[in-house]
């Protein structure tokens, strides 16, 4: 059986009719007891399991997934990876993530197709240029590479942008982060799953948590559709289901769930090679390796668990896109879809022990969980292995919604995310 992935093994298997590949992961039967059980087989949960086994040497780890791994927001997002944040606390988290992403393919022996093609945030007025400078300076001070582009540099980099004199939103410049980019979302989930499985993690798909098992006011496991599973510590990383599981566990969270939509155009030959966002139109776009324009925008205005697209937001996002890129008037929409995102009051994530002792939280990522998968997994693994905060996760404790220490990036820099 061929387990290691490389050009050589692909050639070898080519000669063998591709018949010798080992399964990417097993489909094990659940054990009765684990050291750590993680609810949620998305990127965050799988990465957490991987680092628990890899970094902390935790032997018995299970990931419980109601559906199919990577089937939630990990497989529905627009795959942008960036660390252009304002507060040092956010930078510590997201830049760790970007740095881990940079070597992740080799570490996991799975090509996640990280494409660091840069991310450009268009600036449309002199006043915004001052805010952009504030943002770029904050990033540079926090040790993250970023720069301001002027109009002519934006024009050289993205000649197909709308530079017409009567454009609705004139281009004054852009915030540019060179190391930002996109990665193949499925590959991130699958790469972590395969690597975690190889380290002995049990990935239990189609296994739904029905309730939490408690003893003496402490969470000691979960009752699932595949029976009771006990664990020393239980973690949850369940975007789109946080409210539901919190209710089962008997507490409320500072989270409202919304639909976030995305769509892709039909594929065309490469014409656009960065990630671009315009705060004025609220639209962002990149071109996938397959050639599709991957397009996203802001949240829907109605709280929802619907996981489906609709017209009002699509119309807003696409009108913004075409205003930015007149040549895309030649393109057609191929697919639209929606995911359920868990939005906190400050749009920053939540880490740490929940109000139910023994149950730990990794959630509230809003629209930004994908880019944070490696760092989220790293710090959550630390929390689950030690029971205490990682240095990076401490500011993201649930307690900040008691003290008022919110980490609102929009408040700091006017970035929608």
């Amino acid at each position, binding site marked *: 059986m061929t387990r290691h992935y490389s050009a050589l093994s692909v050639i070898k298997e080519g000669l063998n009719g591709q018949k010798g590949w080992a399964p990417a992961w097993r489909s094990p039967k659940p054990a009765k007891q684990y050291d750590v059980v993680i609810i949620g087989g998305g990127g965050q949960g799988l990465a957490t399991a991987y680092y628990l086994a890899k970094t902390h040497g935790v032997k018995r780890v299970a990931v419980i997934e109601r559906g199919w791994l990577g089937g939630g927001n990990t497989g529905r997002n627009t795959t942008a990876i960036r660390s252009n944040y304002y507060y040092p606390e956010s930078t510590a988290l997201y830049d760790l993530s970007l740095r881990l992403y940079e070597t992740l393919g080799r570490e996991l022996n799975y090509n996640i197709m990280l494409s660091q093609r840069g991310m450009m945030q268009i600036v449309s007025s002199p006043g915004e240029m001052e805010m952009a400078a504030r943002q770029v300076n904050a990033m540079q001070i926090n040790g993250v590479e970023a720069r301001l582009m002027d109009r002519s540099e934006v024009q050289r980099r993205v000649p197909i942008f709308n530079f017409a004199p009567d454009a609705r939103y004139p281009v004054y410049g852009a915030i540019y982060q060179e190391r930002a980019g996109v990665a193949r979302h499925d590959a991130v989930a699958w790469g972590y799953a395969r690597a975690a499985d190889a380290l002995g993690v049990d990935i239990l798909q189609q296994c739904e948590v029905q309730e939490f098992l408690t003893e003496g006011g402490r969470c000691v496991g979960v009752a699932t559709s595949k029976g009771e599973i006990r664990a020393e510590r239980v973690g949850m990383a369940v975007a789109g*289901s*946080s*409210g*539901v599981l*919190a*209710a089962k566990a008997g507490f*409320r*969270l*500072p*989270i*409202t*769930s919304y639909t976030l939509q995305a769509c892709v155009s039909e594929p065309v030959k490469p014409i656009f090679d960065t990630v671009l966002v315009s705060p004025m139109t609220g639209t962002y776009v990149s071109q996938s390796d397959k050639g599709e324009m991957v397009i996203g925008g802001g949240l829907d*205005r*109605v*709280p*929802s*668990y*619907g996981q489906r697209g*609709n*017209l*009002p937001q699509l119309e807003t996002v696409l009108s913004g896109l075409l205003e930015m890129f007149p040549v895309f008037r030649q393109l057609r929409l191929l697919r639209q879809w929606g995911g359920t995102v868990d939005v906190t*009051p400050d749009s920053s994530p939540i880490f740490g022990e929940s109000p139910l002792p023994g149950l730990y939280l990794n959630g509230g990522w809003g629209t930004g969980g994908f880019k944070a998968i490696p760092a989220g997994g790293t710090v959550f693994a630390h929390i689950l292995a030690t029971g205490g905060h990682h240095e990076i996760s401490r500011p993201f404790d649930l307690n900040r*919604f*008691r*003290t*008022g220490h919110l980490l609102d990036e929009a408040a700091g820099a006017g970035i929608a995310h």
Partner: protein
Amino acid sequence: MQLFPCPFCGPRPETEFHFGGDAGNTRPDAAASDSDWTNYLFFKHNRKGPTREIWMHLTCREVFLMARDTVSHEVSATEALGGEA
């Protein structure tokens, strides 16, 4: 495009409405503890399925109560707050 029945204007497109939060999230009085206050300020029911919420119809500016389902998006009832309409 969802249609929300404003108790005053009848069914109108979702884009005309503003979400005001969970129904029954009463503002604590001046003596509230940090915990009571932040419960009110930040913590949500975020129900999956039937829920009751406060909405404003932006064009008529009336605030009302809406019972709806956050999965199917079916609206079961809307009700003016002051008993008018």
